């Protein structure tokens, strides 16, 4: 039987506000346990939540960025359950009336563009952390994270492979960091993915029973977990078994998913509107102010890059992988007036060097202006591609600006045709055998002669000029 995979993702993005969603405590990561937990965060008797409008603004930004409906009145609910790192015994979240509904995100998988629709996005507070190590049979509770604002972003179950799921997660990651509502740091838990996975026979309309894989904190794990889960579900069904609705965890060490709780253990969260908080009202002025302050979004920028710089759709998608990369590309392209060449350099030489050095684009030792200047020197014939790579190395090492490096290292292409003619004559004289072979019809011999001339010029000869000269001499 042929099977189809169905995936929907729920992504928890930590909003980049300075203080928590319902208290004034700092949200900074890594402080000593419980030093960023106020009376409100530890849920002392009598304390009350007060909404941080900064968190709402982040949610508005997101809603606008994905073309969603912003609920002008949205409501916080209480999700009730007991756990030691949940101080109030309930999490403040949004169930019936979330701030964002609908919207869509475009992804590209193997050259194919696809639109993934979003169901909703809602604001909620994060829980604290339970620390099970170092406490000798007891559990330590750190409430620094309790009350950190989250935007939970829920997609429709429209992805059909782990590759699509990863492409969606990456596109979402790009977007939330692009618009500055999330720092995107997956190691610190700022962007956590839950994947709802099911399989069904190809052609069947109803969804299969899904299992939810919780808390995937890298794209690699997301892919591995889905691939394992899909295989497991298909095998189970083909062996005559049934899939039970469940929540599972992915173990990166074994590459397997394992059951966390079954549907029977599922909580009844007893949601109801939080009477301590008023409904959140979004007025049009506020929304318009946020809209006006939004940067150009990745999708719009991709279209513009294709039109303005003549780059391919694929290249445009890669170049808008982050705002920093897109800005870098555009600065370099403008500096040299050569969009395609700039794209090739950014995605080729520069990316390779950055990857090798494990550096992000923001930390690139070669600035966008320098790369632009370098490309301009290729364009005006001063540098060959090969020489340009040597200049790039100089820039990378911090040896100075482009022209200075060309000068200091003598990397200028040979422009004096008299000098080149002399070299060509010497090479022809020294390689009579190749000359005869060429004349006997062996084209390869010509290439050997070109190579010899380039070698003799120590790479500085213009290859096109060498071609022309050799052809003229050999006719």
């Amino acid at each position, binding site marked *: 039987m042929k099977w189809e995979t169905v995936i929907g993702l729920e992504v928890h993005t930590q909003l980049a506000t300075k203080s928590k969603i319902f208290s004034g405590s700092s949200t900074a990561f890594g402080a000593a346990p419980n030093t960023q937990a106020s009376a409100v965060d530890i849920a002392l008797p009598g304390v009350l939540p007060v909404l941080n409008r900064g968190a709402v603004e982040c949610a508005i930004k997101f809603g606008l960025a994905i073309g969603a409906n912003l609920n002008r009145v949205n409501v916080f609910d209480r999700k009730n359950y*007991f756990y030691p790192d949940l101080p109030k015994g309930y999490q403040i979240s949004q169930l019936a009336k979330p701030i964002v509904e609908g919207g869509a995100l475009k992804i590209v998988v193997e050259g194919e563009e696809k639109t993934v629709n979003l169901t909703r996005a809602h604001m909620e507070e994060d829980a604290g952390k339970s620390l099970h190590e170092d406490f000798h049979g007891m559990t330590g509770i750190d409430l620094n994270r309790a009350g950190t604002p989250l935007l939970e972003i829920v997609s429709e179950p429209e992805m059909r492979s782990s590759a699509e799921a990863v492409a969606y997660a990456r596109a979402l990651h790009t977007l939330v960091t692009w618009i500055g509502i999330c720092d995107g740091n997956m190691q610190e838990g700022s962007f956590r993915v839950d994947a709802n996975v099911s399989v069904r026979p190809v052609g069947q309309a109803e969804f299969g029973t899904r299992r939810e894989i919780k808390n995937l904190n890298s794209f690699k794990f997301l892919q591995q977990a889905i691939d394992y889960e899909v295989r497991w579900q298909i095998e189970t069904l083909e062996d005559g078994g049934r899939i039970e609705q469940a929540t599972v965890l992915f173990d990166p060490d074994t590459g397997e998913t394992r059951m966390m709780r079954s549907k029977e253990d599922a909580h009844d969260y007893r949601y109801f509107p939080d009477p301590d908080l008023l409904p959140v009202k979004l007025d049009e002025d506020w929304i318009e102010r946020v809209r006006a302050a939004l940067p150009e979004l990745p999708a719009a920028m991709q279209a513009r890059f294709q039109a303005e710089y003549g780059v391919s759709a694929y290249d445009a998608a890669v170049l808008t992988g982050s705002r920093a990369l897109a800005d870098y590309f555009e600065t370099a392209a403008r500096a040299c007036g050569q969009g395609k060449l700039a794209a090739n350099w950014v995605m080729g030489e520069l990316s390779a060097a950055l990857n090798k050095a494990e550096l992000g684009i923001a930390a690139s030792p070669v600035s966008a202006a320098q790369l632009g200047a370098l490309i301009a020197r290729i364009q005006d014939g001063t540098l060959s591609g090969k020489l340009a790579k040597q200049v790039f190395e100089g820039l990378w090492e911090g040896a100075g600006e482009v022209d200075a490096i060309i000068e200091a290292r003598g990397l200028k292409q040979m422009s004096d045709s008299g000098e080149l003619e002399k070299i060509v004559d010497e090479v022809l004289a020294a390689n009579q055998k190749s000359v005869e072979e060429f004349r006997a019809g062996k084209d390869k011999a010509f290439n050997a002669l070109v190579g010899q001339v380039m070698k003799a010029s120590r790479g500085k000869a213009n290859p096109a000029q060498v071609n022309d000269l050799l052809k003229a001499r050999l006719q």
Partner: protein
Amino acid sequence: MSDASLSTLAAQLAAKQVSSRELAQVYLDRIAALNPAINAFITVDPDKTLLEAAGADVRIAAGNAGPLTGIPVAHKDIFCTDGWLTTCGSKMLSNFVAPYDATVIERFKAAGMPSLGKTNMDEFAMGSSNETSYFGAVKNPWNLAYVPGGSSGGAAACVAARMAPAATGTDTGGSIRQPAALTGITGLKPTYGLVSRYGMIAFASSLDQAGPMALSAEDCALLLNAMTGFDPRDSTSLEREKEDYTRDLEKPLAGLRVGLPREFFAEGLNNEVAAAVDAAVAELKKLGATPVEISLANSKLAIPVYYVLAPAEASSNLSRFDGVRYGYRAPDYANLDDMYCKTRAQGFGAEVKRRILIGAYVLSHGYYDAYYLQAQKIRRLIADDFSEAFKTCDVILGPTAPGTAFKLGEKSDDPVEMYLNDLYTIPANLAGLPGMSLPCGFDTKGLPIGLQLVGNYFSEAKMLNVAHQYQRATDWHAHAPEGLK
């Protein structure tokens, strides 16, 4: 001196006839003498009280006194008080010392009012007789075999017994007004949102409201001036201009339309209470008011609606009492679930557990629509009835409770019978309206009868005006329980 009004005490303090320390000592002495029998206080700390009084004396001497500076006040043990035990009448918080002051406490401190201590109450404010307190029942100063009402029973009893000239209370379904009625004092529940709930331990957040309890409407007006005002720490606190609630006290009542809801004078109302309320209406007529019959048709649903909504909110509000971070924790447990179960089984009393169970039930999957949502709809209808009524009257009048104080133990085995005591007070909470209770007579057993006024939103000054004019014409509020002096 312990019978004196707040304005009299303020005048004596201003004239240096008495110091704040001396005044506090007068009340502390009465507490020492009377509290063992009445049990109105959970915590008394004379050293702290006198230290605060000394601070007030400094302010008075420096000419920095406000209208209430130097007058002591007792606080319901539901308000968090920095450095004082704050128990909420529960074993669960029997060891809890708050590290901060509730906004109400801050405001009274800012007004220069020393604290006389923390008053007894029904556990987590759940009760109408003060018998659910972990710290024992409070006795009614008018007859120690009777309950003082609840949940602010300690506050009501301490004012009635003149152990404090004023007290703070909270009212979720009648917890200020009903004990005020049963102990013969005056108490006011403001419009929802007028007084900050920050630092007041939540029972039912959408209904809870703090208010003053004292010997007269005038005293309540002065206390309300100190309590109210926007608080950015409470999202349900209302941002509006400060009012002077004493401003209309002396206004004549000519032309006042007093609405009498026919449903409040129907079956279930004790005859003696009915007669006293009728006499009060007659008195107000003499003062120029006109009675108008009105209907609050949906108010008969107030108790069932309340006993869905209040427990629903309570079941969630009380989840934080889990033994993890503060308060009581069961001494022996096998694992986390066992710790939760034993802590909450041992830490909460029967009434609190009953309401948590009801609340969890009405919010649970499959029942939410039938109970919680339905109750919210009826709540709206009850509020609409009031809006309609206020088109034809300025203030609504009726009995505060269907009867006078009942005997200790008389209703404690029958929760539904107990719940019926709040029949007339709950509608105002559901609608968020202000209400107050003031004494209007005594029954044949010598127990006080309470008259309730319910006003439109933000009409506290109007209600206080009516009550003050009534108290100028009558002396029910001036009676003190005998044998306690």
